[in-house]
């Protein structure tokens, strides 16, 4: 397979979810992405090859790239439709779960938190910092994943296993927890008038030891409410009503 065709597949892979549907999920997007390769492998139009890739497919959008690469290799090796289908079915679920945990569950909150720390300092670089931290692993998975999938074929599962994504997930989440506590300390400093800018307010400058405990108690109680099934948005509304009532009674 020449690199131009793989580049076309790579570009199209960004549209894997453009026709996401409840029935067959990413089926159209998957077929759309690998279409240049299918046309190359089957110059005499083979509708069966296109149609078999319109069957159910659902994985994480970035993790679909190594699968695409492997499927292209299998098509090239003239594997049967059944073999390819069984490979896709076997791998998409676990890749999807891994991608959800790594990209959505670990990397995104981490990158956002770093950017939020920047934005607390009113740094205009905050959005760029977020995009950079998030997209390096993302684009690596889309690009190198597709290439590696093409090189490894059916053995791509082994490669992903060797990267050790689950251990990265744990590390990133622990780091996120640490950054979260740092974030709250920054908030404390802002409450305390120790910083300048739009967020700064000398709200509690008289007792910041006590304020740090009040803030912690608020976070812990909010976390409890969230665990009880309330969403952040509902909690914001509840707090605003409670604050309103408190102010009204205090007056």
């Amino acid at each position, binding site marked *: 397979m020449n690199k131009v065709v793989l580049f076309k597949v790579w570009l199209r892979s960004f549209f894997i979810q453009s026709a996401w549907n409840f029935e067959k999920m990413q089926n159209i997007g998957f077929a759309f992405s690998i279409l240049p390769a299918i046309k190359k492998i089957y110059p005499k139009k083979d509708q069966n090859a296109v149609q078999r890739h319109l069957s159910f497919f659902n994985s994480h959008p970035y993790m679909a790239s190594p699968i695409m690469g492997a499927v292209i290799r299998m098509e090239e090796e003239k594997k049967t439709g059944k073999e390819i289908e069984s490979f896709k079915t076997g791998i998409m679920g676990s890749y999807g779960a891994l991608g959800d*945990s790594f990209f959505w569950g670990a990397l995104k*909150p981490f990158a956002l938190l770093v950017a939020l720390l920047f934005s607390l300092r009113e740094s205009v670089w905050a959005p760029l910092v977020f995009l950079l931290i998030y997209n390096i692993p993302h684009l690596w998975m889309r690009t190198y994943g597709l290439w590696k999938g093409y090189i490894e074929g059916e053995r791509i599962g082994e490669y992903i296993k060797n990267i050790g994504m689950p251990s990265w997930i744990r590390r990133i989440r622990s780091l996120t*927890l640490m950054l979260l*506590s740092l974030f709250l300390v920054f908030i404390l400093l802002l409450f305390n008038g120790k910083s300048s800018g739009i967020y700064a307010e000398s709200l509690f400058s008289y007792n910041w030891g006590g304020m740090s405990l009040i803030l912690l108690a608020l976070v812990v109680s909010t976390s409890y409410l969230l665990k009880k099934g309330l969403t952040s948005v509902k909690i914001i509304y509840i707090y605003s009503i409670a604050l309103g009532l408190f102010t009204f009674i205090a007056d």
Partner: protein
Amino acid sequence: MLIIVSMMMAFFGALIALDRTAACQVMISRPLVVSSFIGLVFGNITYGLTLGFLIELLWIERLPVGSSLIPNETALSVVASSVVFLAGSAIGVLNREIMVFVIMLFLPVGWIFQKVDWFLRDYNSKLSSYTLRAVEKVGDKAVDSAILKGLGLSFILHFIILFVLIVFGTFLVRYLYPLLNSDILSLLGMLFYIFPVVGTAAAINSIKSVRRPIVQFTVFYILFVLITFGYNKL
């Protein structure tokens, strides 16, 4: 003027909303990025950044895992940011209170667009069945056409609804905000500081596969407070 600017914002919003699920997913649709960009367009990136910061905190724990549909934070960012700058410049107010007021007022926008996303996915299901049949007749062109239709409908729906909401929202805030008395304004000012608290708690709860995250968080927090306190004493 309002109509033209609202159309431009709705166009930008509809385009950027594609990044959320339909195309690319390079995260330019996150509130922090969207609101900062809108702030830059209106000549005040700091306020744009702050708006993005506040909305981001409310959505930090919501993960679009599998087939789940979450309220649309991108649409909320586009509407809230556009309305803050358009209504704010009309009434001569640009502060934390108007930002919190607009976000609180337009939070349901997230749910409106959640329904839009639901409708789009339902439409795509019909598109999928149609494509399967069409491939037999017209070949692989049917697949390309399905992708274009999916993207096109998403863009058009987002554009129309965003445009209506921005225009309506601007008029509403221009009328309502001057009616707020000082008590409500000070309440909005206090709420500004509640967002980071709720966001932090939400982010802690989103951390799975780490043992007792709240305990670990508390330990780190106390440690950092002591270090900072000690540093300030010195």
